[in-house]
């Protein structure tokens, strides 16, 4: 007991009467100690408080989650033959009674409705869309879109997009070229789903980059959405925005749009090497044998990456016109070039493998090993 008393007295004195008499560095040290101790204690309090609040919220959340998910699961018991109005009539009063002002309830109801809407088709989807509007949740989504905060904007856009609130497409368009990349992407994705007459209009006005990640997302949406009418993407292949060109090239490839052939050939001379590479890939994939010549023309000026892609494309086309060229590639200094050329020869379904076997007998040991590699189907290229 005595020890603690002396200790506290010492600290008290140090920080009061004696503080001014210390050399300045010790004084600063004392102040830093005080600050650190107070900060640490405050952090403890904050963390404890945070944990308590979390536990409390979790309890409330679980209670409501149980209630709301049970309620929604009841949607299942209705049949396709039941009338839509009857089902809506059954659920509307129940949902209306929920304390929607409570943020937990509001969030839960919306997110669960979205999950059902996303995963089920048929009656459930239809009923949920109607209920969403009847409960006025569509208005709330609209308000969110006009919120100043980008996170809330995104939330609103996602809700509207999932629930198919198409009248807000005109409001979303202005965000499709926003500076904030995340917002821009969400807006573009939603616009494709929501716009009734011109879902790809945003490509005309896109000045900002469509990042690769966004291209992945947009590509998924465009290629998986069966209701979408697919335009000819060649229209955007001369866009000044390289990322638009790239996205459209990927779509041309996926939808096998042969009408874009000429544009794609033109792009072989593009200044952006990624576009050149993709164009070559498409020429191979669509087997555009008319373009072979053009590829051959540019071949020797290209970096290795694109050379490889051209060899691959020549292999896919397998017209036979460039057989000698491909065979002569095994004298290249680069193993990757050799290997790609050999794979290209192999691609000819009729004579490919036999030509490789022929080559095998005329070439060096090193090349023989490579040919062995290429002929081994257990190795995926």
């Amino acid at each position, binding site marked *: 007991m005595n020890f603690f008393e002396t200790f506290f007295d010492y600290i008290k004195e140090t920080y009061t009467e004696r503080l001014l008499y210390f*050399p300045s*560095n*010790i004084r*600063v*040290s*004392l102040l*830093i*100690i005080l600050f*650190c*101790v107070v*900060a*640490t204690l405050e*952090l*403890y309090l*904050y*963390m404890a408080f*945070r*944990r308590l609040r979390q536990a409390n919220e979790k309890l409330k959340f679980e209670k409501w989650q149980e209630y709301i998910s049970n309620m929604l699961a009841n949607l299942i018991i209705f049949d396709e033959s039941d009338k839509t109005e009857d089902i809506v009539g059954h659920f509307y009063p129940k949902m209306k009674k929920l304390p929607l002002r409570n943020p937990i309830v509001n969030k839960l109801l919306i997110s669960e409705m979205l999950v059902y809407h996303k995963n089920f088709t048929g009656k459930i989807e239809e009923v949920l869309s109607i209920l969403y509007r009847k409960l006025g949740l569509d208005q709330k989504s609209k308000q969110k879109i006009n919120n100043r905060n980008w*996170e809330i904007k*995104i939330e609103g856009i996602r809700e509207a997009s999932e629930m198919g609130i198409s009248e807000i497409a005109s409001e979303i368009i202005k965000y499709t070229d926003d500076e904030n*990349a*995340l917002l821009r992407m*969400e807006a573009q994705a939603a616009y494709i789903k929501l716009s009734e007459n011109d879902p790809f209009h945003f490509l005309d006005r896109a000045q900002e*980059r469509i*990042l*690769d*990640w*966004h*291209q*992945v*997302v947009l*590509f*998924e949406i465009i290629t998986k959405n069966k209701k979408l009418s697919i335009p000819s993407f060649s229209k955007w292949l001369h866009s000044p925005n390289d990322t638009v060109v790239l996205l459209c090239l*990927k779509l041309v490839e996926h939808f096998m749009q042969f009408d874009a052939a000429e544009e794609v050939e033109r792009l072989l001379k593009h200044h952006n090497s990624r576009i050149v590479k993709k164009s070559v890939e498409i020429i191979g994939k669509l087997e555009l044998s008319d373009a072979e010549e053009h590829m051959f023309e540019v071949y020797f000026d290209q970096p290795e990456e694109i050379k490889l892609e051209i060899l691959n494309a020549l292999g896919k086309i397998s017209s036979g016109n460039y057989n000698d060229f491909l065979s002569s590639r095994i004298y290249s200094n680069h*193993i*990757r070039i050799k*290997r790609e050329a050999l794979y290209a020869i192999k691609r000819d379904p009729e004579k490919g493998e036999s030509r490789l076997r022929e080559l095998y007998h005329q070439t060096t040991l090193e090349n023989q*090993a*490579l040919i*062995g*590699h290429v*002929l*081994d189907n*257990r*190795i*995926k*290229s």
Partner: protein
Amino acid sequence: MRDFLVTFETFFNNAIFYYALFVMGSYVLLTLLSAIEMSGYMKKNSYVNYREILVSPLAPSVSILAPAFNEEATIIENIRSLLSLHYGNYEVIIINDGSKDSTFQRMFDYYQLEQVNFSVDYQIKCNEIRGVYKSKLPSFSKLTVVDKVNGGKSDALNAGINVSAKDLILCIDVDCIVQEDAILKLAKPYLEEKYQVIATGGVVRIANSCRVEDGKLIEVNMPRNLLPRFQVLEYIRAFLMGRMAWSRLNGLLIISGAMGLFDKNVVIKVGGYDQNTVGEDMELVVRMRRYMYEQDRRFKVVYIPDPLCWTEAPADLKILGRQRNRWTRGTIETLWMHKDLFFNPRYGVLGMLSYPYWLFFEWLAPIIEFLGLSVFILLASLGHINWEFSLILISMVYFFSVALSTVAILFEEMSYQQYTKGKDLVKLLLASFLEPILYHPLTVFWAVKGNIHKFRGKNNWGAMTRKGFKDQHISTETEQMT
């Protein structure tokens, strides 16, 4: 003499004070930076749907490279969990680095391997590859096993790079527990940054006392032993605070050897992993950065704070000491190999900020601390110490480090909150009180020992690297804070 001692004492006190102030100031700055970066990442990431990239044909292709040396006990299970990661376009390459036990035979039998006519393109130098094997079973078609002559971890990774057929390479320790969405999260920056991304690194977390079944992490627990618990604290501080801040500055120097995703072409251009250093993970990133500066290309090294990789930390003083000793040597070697970077404006952030930081904080800090302590003991034995002032100075450093650890724990609480049990949180906070007294002096001791080893026996190393990497569980440097 007396006068001199008195002046020296004042000077010594001042020196400690200003040095401490400088170090603490840097940490405060780094903490602020990491707070900004962390909150930005958390906010952005909550809007990402990773499933899209999983299915997309546009996602980059990835080769997982996992060197294995004498891993017979766990290899089958480790491979199985690597094969079940959530990603579309990836392959798993296990490099058997001349194991002396039955590692290879076990893989051969269980996965029904057969040799294929693989003609290896030795783009990077590595020891002879004896054979490349694939499984006969279609369900293991993602698996490739490379059997090679022993050459150490770097050499094994280089061999894997030569065999890889994908765009990106994920270099991991085979005994790590890899979270299922690890590739997804690490690959994403390659698709979204304005500049070319050359590498992304993941966090390493400590799996001691956690529940693991079939190679999957089921439940996170606080390590029961004190030694790994201190390391939990150390890792949280280093990864959540240190690296996040460096990522913000685009000056991140190390990607832990336990998990890093690299652009294969750049790795090949710079010649792969260096076999002459025990700090190969740090050295590679430095070399890749250099290369990009020399090519005048804008680039980024990104760091993902999500807990993606869990590993068993040494719970034994001897093994831990060996690990830290090696880290120190790795740091010295890397710094020495790239000494021309020091305050070289040609290399931007790397030369002006990252390199000097590493030199002063990672290499010199433990030495200065050690010297300071020695002088303190000397002065004390001569009776020339103002005990009160010294204690106040020491307390300042102590309370600052406790506060810093507490902030780090707060970061963890507000981001991933892996330790869900309240009891575990309390344990961690208590550890932060003991750590500066019990654990920190040990790390200083090991670091100093590493320096001595390095400068005394220069010729020892070749032999040391060739021993394999059994105890290199996480060959990464955690930034030692204070």
